[in-house]
């Protein structure tokens, strides 16, 4: 077991942790809009960390450059998709949940 494998393992573990937390968040949060928060953010970082781990494992090659392109793609697409879904819900008139006594 060399040092690259260990670093890759750390990155993969962190990525999986964030993805799992995103899934738990989607289940636990009370309404549509707050569910967008874990789905939009933690997924982005989770996938990015997993792909970064794979890049480190692969070293510098064509495959790692393709993985880097996927990371850039995810960084542009994930917030945009979140925004599109949230906008659709807002236009359809979904009411946001509010904590009792906050207003």
């Amino acid at each position, binding site marked *: 077991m060399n040092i690259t494998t260990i670093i890759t393992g750390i990155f993969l573990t962190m990525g999986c942790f964030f993805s799992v*937390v995103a899934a738990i968040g989607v289940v636990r949060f009370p309404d549509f809009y707050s569910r967008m*928060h874990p789905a939009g*953010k933690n997924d982005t970082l989770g996938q990015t960390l997993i792909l970064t781990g794979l890049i480190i494992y692969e070293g510098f090659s064509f495959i790692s*450059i393709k993985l880097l392109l996927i990371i850039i793609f995810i960084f542009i697409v994930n917030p945009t998709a979140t925004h599109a879904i949230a906008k659709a819900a*807002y236009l359809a008139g979904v009411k946001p949940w509010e904590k009792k006594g906050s207003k």
Partner: protein
Amino acid sequence: MSFILTFIILFSFWILLSGYFDFMHLFLGIISSLFVAFISHDLMIGDVNIRRGFKKLLRFIRYLPWLLYQIALANLDIVYRTLHPNMPIAPRIIKFKTDLKTDMGIVTLANSITLTPGTVTIDVKNGEFIVHAIAEKPAEDLLEGEMQARVKIVEGG
């Protein structure tokens, strides 16, 4: 000018994705890149001043480290709120005006808002942002406008 730039971008993308350097693949790549660049160069790049575009790219790269730091903070924030037994959230919808002019600046700001702690952009209409914040503090931080100032620097003159 935009024709040559589009061709260079398309052809380097071709080489990256194919990974072959023999004559046939390079030749096919040159032909298809030339063809696509000929059809669509005014769509992809348009009449962009190359030097200004390059400066903008440099400013955007300087904006990236701060954005990555904010993304890390955002994720730790969501992890804390998700795993905390009481779920310390108090969602609300806030609206604010922006004075960013270009489409690219507005897109950058909207995506940055979505990626940073506790806020998700819902809609942008006529320079007015509708943002969903998950608690009180992220909403206040956003209204302070530090991010908007930074995006404005990227946008430049």
